[in-house]
């Protein structure tokens, strides 16, 4: 269960993490440069992470939050997005059909689409899957000169977060963003400024799969009962028609349009 | 003005070329359809030889140039040579074909193109005067026969003037725009008027209406004009 802890008090907004991310994911630097100005929040298919200003002197890195109960994983109709064993939410381009439901489903507006490509795919942070396999840490955490991005086990990071808040209660708001919101996220934030601007809801917000999957799981029951009741009604009506008109009557309802 | 020229050389040119190409293709397909339907029906006889013969004869109509209405026939023949060579192979047009169709054609010399253009213009004038002044021709000429000749005259004259600033009484851009617009109007009209004989001439023998191009077949056209279109 890996994760990242982003300390907003340490971030100076240099965007070295963005540069490292662009490089690590093989994105086009020129397009990343352009999208910084054109994308409303700075994320795009060529900028999988961005630094958003909060007020005028705070900055926060934004990318996929790697939710513990991800809405996109639940939404993807081909199961192309999965939560891997280490907690990273990863995408399988071989399954994707390009429906973009994940983009609608994500409460953080994270998934981005390669709109200009003729064979487009979804793009988002995958917690540097390949670098982790090589024993390295994610590129952004590696590049940060301020050590504002801590990478490690989520439990460790949570302890660290509370420790930092405890050591310096005046320097932080006593809240770890991502601990409970939407059922918890692997990317955690601590800050001395309110992060509501980044789209964080209130802490007791339920995870979206938790909200909708019970409805989805009721489907077979609904379907089965509709099937049974329609078939039952059909049988009753046919029987009564047979009783009233004799055996032929039941099949002439089909004649339809003859006038 | 430049914006208009850009539009006429860009989208409008693509449009008119598209209408002409699709229109001629449509004529071709529908004619072939008629042809095969005819073959399937009782009319087993297909005048292949005649079709070939007629097509070749129109390519080199020696017989008509020496007898009948000699002036008209010769003017028409000369006009067709100019009308095919100049639009396709004039040096200035080569650039356009290359830009839009990706084919690089050979060009004819500018001097030759000039002479050919003047001859073509004169030939069209002869045809025009004949259609208006000669009573027999006038009787079988429809309004569209005359107005199409005028429309054909426009791009030739404006093109010639645009290429020869010494004779050009209008600013170059105006003349060039007239050239573009009139030529494009002509391209668009091809599938809808008798100009479609570009394709249909080969099917002359089997068309349902025998639109006879032969001199002497004008009586049938006259019938059309007078509304006696019995066979449809």
């Amino acid at each position, binding site marked *: 269960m890996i994760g990242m802890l982003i300390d907003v008090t340490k971030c100076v907004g240099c965007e070295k993490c963005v540069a490292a991310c662009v490089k690590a994911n093989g994105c086009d630097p020129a397009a990343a440069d352009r999208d910084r100005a054109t994308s409303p929040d700075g994320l795009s298919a060529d900028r999988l992470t961005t630094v958003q200003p909060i007020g005028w002197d705070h900055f926060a890195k934004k990318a996929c939050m790697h939710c513990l109960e991800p809405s996109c994983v*639940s939404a993807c109709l*081909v199961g192309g997005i999965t939560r891997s064993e280490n907690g990273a939410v990863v995408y399988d381009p071989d399954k994707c059909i390009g429906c973009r439901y994940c983009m609608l489903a994500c409460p953080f507006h994270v998934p981005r689409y390669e709109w200009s490509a003729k064979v487009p795919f979804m793009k988002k942070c995958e917690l540097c899957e390949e670098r982790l396999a090589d024993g390295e840490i994610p590129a952004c955490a590696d590049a940060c000169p301020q050590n504002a991005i801590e990478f490690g086990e989520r439990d460790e990071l949570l302890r660290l977060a509370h420790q930092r808040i405890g050591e310096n209660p005046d320097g932080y708001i006593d809240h770890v963003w991502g601990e409970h919101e939407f059922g918890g996220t692997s990317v955690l934030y601590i800050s001395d400024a309110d992060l509501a601007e980044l789209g964080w809801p209130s802490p007791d917000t339920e995870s979206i799969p938790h909200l909708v999957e019970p*409805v989805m799981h009721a489907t077979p029951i609904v379907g089965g009962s509709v099937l049974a009741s329609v078939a039952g009604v059909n049988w009753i009506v046919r029987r009564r028609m047979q009783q009233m008109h004799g055996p032929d009557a039941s099949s002439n309802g089909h004649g339809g349009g003859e006038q | 003005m430049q914006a208009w020229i850009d539009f006429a050389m860009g989208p409008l040119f693509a449009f008119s070329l598209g209408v002409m190409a699709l229109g001629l293709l449509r004529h071709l397909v529908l004619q072939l359809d008629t042809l095969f339907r005819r073959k399937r029906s009782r009319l087993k006889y297909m005048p292949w030889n005649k079709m070939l013969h007629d097509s070749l004869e129109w390519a080199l109509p020696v017989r008509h140039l020496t007898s009948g209405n000699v002036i008209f026939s010769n003017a028409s023949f000369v006009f067709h040579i100019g009308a095919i060579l100049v639009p396709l192979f004039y040096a200035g047009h080569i650039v356009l074909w290359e830009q839009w169709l990706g084919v690089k054609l050979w060009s004819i010399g500018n001097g030759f193109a000039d002479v050919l253009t003047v001859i073509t213009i004169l030939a069209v004038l002869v045809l025009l005067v004949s259609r208006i002044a000669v009573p027999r021709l006038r009787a079988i000429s429809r309004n569209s026969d005359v107005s199409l000749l005028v429309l054909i005259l426009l791009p030739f004259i404006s093109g010639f003037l645009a290429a020869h*600033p010494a004779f050009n009484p209008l600013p170059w851009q105006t003349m060039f725009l007239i050239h573009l617009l009139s030529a494009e109007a002509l391209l668009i009209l091809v599938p809808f008027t008798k100009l479609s004989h570009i394709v249909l001439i080969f099917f002359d023998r089997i068309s349902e209406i025998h639109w006879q191009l032969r001199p002497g077949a004008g009586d049938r056209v006259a019938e059309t004009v007078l509304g006696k279109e019995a066979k449809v």
Partner: protein
Amino acid sequence: MSELELTTDRTQRIKDVLWALTFAGLVAMLLRFVFGLGATTNLDDRVPWGLWKIFNMISGAALATCGFTVGFLGHVLHLKPFDRMVKPAILVAFLGYGASLFALLFDIGLPWRFWHPFVHWNIHSFLFEVFWCVSCYFVITFLELSPTLLERLGLAKLRGVLSKAAGVFVIIGITLSSLHHTSLGSLFLVTPQRLHALWYSPIISLLFIISAIGGGLMLLALIKTLHSWWYDPSRVFGGTMVREGVVCKTCGGDSENGATPEGPDLHVVRALVTAGAWVLSVYLLLKIGDLVLRPEARAALLAGTWESVLYVVELLSAAILPVLLVLIKPVRRSPYALAVTAGLAAFGLALNRVDVGIFGYFRDAGELYFPSAIEWVITFGVLAMAGLAFFFIIENFSVFDDRWKRLADSELKFSSSFDRLTWVWNHRLMTGLERASLIALIVLPLAWITLYPPFLESTPPDTRAPLAVDAARDTLRIDANRDGLDAVFAHTAHKQRLGGEESCVNCHHLSMPADRATPCSECHRAMEAETVIFNHEQHLAWVAEDKELGGWIPENQSCVECHSGQARSAASAKACMECHREDMHAVDPANGRLAQFAATSYHSAMHNTCIPCHTENALTQNRPELDRCTTCHQFGVPEGLEENLQMRELVEVRIRRQ
């Protein structure tokens, strides 16, 4: 004969329009695949779902519910007036779902993988369920329709088998339909933060299926009325239409008096509309209940935003007005009023889906989405194709009636004609390939030139900065694309270092005539694109005046002053500097030769002006700091670049990328 004439008259214009839309749609479909989603649609990361998914798919499926509802009423319950509408209802469902699925192929990014959900499962996804149910239901509608098609095509044996199985198909179809119509609503349950509170309801699934049932019945009533209007007005519109076999041309008027006999099929339309209104009244109650029980929806409605107005309009059209209208007795007797009621409800249903799927997200997206021309053309192109298929099937198979049996198979032959086009159009080309192809040859090129993305490309935004005023300042902060990464340029210091006023031409390599130091942005107007700075029209006059040319129109003689060769094109023109070396202080430090018509982008103009000098001095004076990006960009460099990168390398990188 009169009947035949009427037939062609009433549907001809509609079919013409449908053909035109179809051909335009084909062009747009081609462009969509050639240029990709980004260039052809107005969708973006904030608005990932647009017209094709919401209007074509979700509204389309909702309007096509009559297939299963009328199937239930007619086929399972054997209710009297509805059993006659089963075949038309199934046809509407088949075409509606077919069109919806077809439109989806243009919407999804990788349409050749449309079959993936059959293989790769995610049973937790609503979209997965929708996909399975919709595609299976589409097959079911086809199987339900096939006996009708086979009737004309022969194959009596197969038809018999399919007819026997019809009951099973109907029951499976009802099950699949009720599942996917609820799930289409549940699709939006995953966006509690994003969908506007007025439409985000926990019972959205229930609202979706009930409104779809009601609106679908209404649409079928409308189609039945239109069918009668097109082919046989007396059946719905009553007896005044046809007098002794002569068609009354003014039947659209209000000449009816009270004694008009009712059309024999009017009661079918009335039954459909009344049944639809019953369902819609349940929908209305649910909607009101939803509004009352959810405080955030109440607040949103009372907020008086445009969403609340839209919500009221939608509810009026979808439920309130249809239900109220049906309560009025004269409305139930008039075919026109019934058609208006049905049309209103069907429109309201479609609007509801668009509200939920498009308008409801505007506030969250922070931007308005208006579909691009290509999106509209494909949307209506697909619908037009379905419309043409509808006309073809009802005219050639026994769907509404057996009309095709009575029609003579009149084969109109094409003939090359040079008659007046209008005459040909109105009298000769009534139907068939000839007429459609004539529409095609106008519409295809027209659609091409109006939709072709390169023709529509807007000119790059003008980033001209008011530098002329700034020239008086000692230090300039240059940030042409307003990204905050400004370069600090000590203008006065540079001037003094390089040799005072004499040194202006070092950088201001091409001033406007009679100007000593024209600002860079005067010509390098776009940040990342080249700008055409050559004014051909003006040059004609200038050259004629300067060279004192004669003739009727002096400008016309000016071509040969600049152009050589046969074709007068940019390639045959001489370089600007051949004439302007003196008056424009022209020195081009980059390569000694000026590009002829276009100024390079502002970005590369700046870099190409500063970097050569900086790198050279960094080496000769042994001052490596001169060669760093951060020397000028003191507030940071664009991401993707190392801060310690030397400018030299940057130039090389750019050259390699180009």
